[in-house]
């Protein structure tokens, strides 16, 4: 009886731990100033003391920057930016609220994740104001197994929240969605 119970406890704890890969990690996060420079096709952002501009992933116009951060974790330097912009590619013109993460590689800033938090279609003949009712909570951590940076994202709507995980891929190119159930 006792052995069975101990085995049961061990099985339960192992199973639960296997589902969770990330753990908290020391990350240095600072709010930084950033400026936006208009380009013909792609917008460029200058973060604080960085001389190299960052070309945003989303091909968008009328960018309105809502905030920038610098994040230092695992010896790597990331910059994040959240902005509202107009995307006029495709069949619908949409106003999007986007969150992007850039990684400093040498003297280059490259996109490693672009997350559209909310996008609302616009009509050409309307003067409507767009209301974004979603927000995104981002927490930095790292993987228990291979120590790669991980993000715990929580998308918050008016009534519902949606948590999900991102993990920096082994090639250090992109934060990919991490599905513990797979």
């Amino acid at each position, binding site marked *: 009886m006792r052995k069975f119970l101990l085995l049961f406890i061990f099985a339960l704890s192992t199973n*639960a731990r296997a589902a969770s890969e990330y753990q908290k990690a020391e990350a240095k996060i600072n709010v930084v100033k950033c400026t936006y420079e208009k380009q013909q096709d792609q917008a460029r952002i200058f973060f604080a003391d960085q001389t190299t501009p960052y070309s945003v992933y989303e091909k968008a116009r009328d960018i309105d920057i809502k905030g920038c951060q610098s994040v230092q974790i695992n010896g790597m330097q990331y910059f994040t930016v959240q902005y509202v912009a107009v995307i*006029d590619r495709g069949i619908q013109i949409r106003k999007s609220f986007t969150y992007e993460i850039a990684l400093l590689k040498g003297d280059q800033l490259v996109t490693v994740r672009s997350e559209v938090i909310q996008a609302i279609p616009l009509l050409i003949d309307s003067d409507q104001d767009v209301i974004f009712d979603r927000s995104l909570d981002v927490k930095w951590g790292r993987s228990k197994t291979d120590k790669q940076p991980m993000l715990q994202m929580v*998308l918050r709507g008016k009534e519902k929240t949606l948590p999900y995980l991102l993990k920096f891929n082994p090639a250090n190119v992109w934060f990919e969605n991490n599905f513990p159930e797979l």
Partner: protein
Amino acid sequence: MSQRYVLLNLILVVAAAACPLIGFSGQAWSQEEAAGSVTADQPAQVESTYHYDPSAAQTKATAPPALQPLENEFSFILKKSLNLRDENMKFQSSVRQTSKVAIDADFLKRTLGTHQPTDDQLREFFLNPSSVAPNLEPKRYYDSRAKRWRYDQFVPVHVQNADGNVTSGQMALGAAYRMGAVKMNLPKGAQPTAKEDEREAMAAAENRRQQQLQKEDAETAARTCVTCSTTSTSNPLRKFEASAMSLNRYQGGALWDEYTTFATEFRKKHKTRIGRYNNGTYKRLFLKKLIGKFGEAKAALILQAMTAFGEAPTRFDDDVQIGELAAVIKVINNRANNSYYSSESRILRDIGVQTSKDTRLSVILANSQFSAWNDGDNSLTAMLSFDPNKSDHLTKRRMAFAFAAQQMITENKIEFVGDMAKPDMHHYHANYVWPEWSSSRHRVQQPVVRIVTSVDGEPQETIDVDLSKQKGASHIFYAGVP
């Protein structure tokens, strides 16, 4: 002693199980640790001329103004509707005993020319208002709940559900159906016990029904029509009924069977209700599983059919529906042959596919191209929620037809006529939006899809479907847009 021992062990089990779970759920993260919150400023909302607020409609639940006492003409329509539910509407949307349906009698007078329409008029009105009242123009309104502009014909149909809530508008019946207040009845004999028997049973039931309808039509024509032919049975309602049941007419083949198995397994494992707020995450999970199971090439074929399902408008006529779906598939194929359209896909990057070997995959999932794959899009919800065992009949029909259209294009049973055959036919948009790239110079004036039916490989009949002549929401196609 033994009881205490067992109790102590139980406590240990619960505690041991809970500790790692707490860690997993993220409670261990403290607020001061590496946290960031992203919110946008919220400017004041500007209301439009046509403002429809569903929450306002629900607040009227305590005293629904739409449902009147039985004495006036309005209630006559109400009574008539209930009769239709109980006696005549065998296959159409029927309303459960606990629900009430009412139509504004004045509106019926304006659109149908009578306060007391016939049963046939009412049936058609329920199913397709624009076919009965062609002058019923859609109006633009701002849906404050969905935070987007929509089009509706604002037919004053009101459905009062068992809980007292009243829903209004052209799509009220459809919405009530999705919520389970309205039930789609199948004819007797079309309730299969096993999945394999479903098509046979439905086809047999439909055959019996068609024979009965033809007999009734002949009798009616003989009674009412002196000079016209008794062979004419072109009743749009019956055409719809036949269409909804005729899954055997077009079949998706082996790929459709594989997809339905996959979709069933996916929905069985992920039973969470998929909606606008979470369809982006489920999309990535779905795609990762799909590509993992079938490989990129086959997954691209499945996604192509799903995209056609998500993009093409619904048509009750089988041939027209196939034509609409085929046109979307044609655009995807054309784009796949042009590297310009497969440059970047955020979705593929998110699931670990850095460079896709199949150009169709990157074309379909390219950033901001096919809106059905946009996070939060209602079509995306429809695609991911599709469950072959639970989805309604019309949804299932449309998805099956999408796979059928794809197979028919592969087998050259669908041809594209005129400008539709051009390899640079890369663009289309719905007729209620006008993108900046749209110009009349590049517009396909006659978007005709030719369907070649065949028996044992021998061509039997060609059907030309002109997509520009369809009523309601439709696609406008463009060739040669720079």
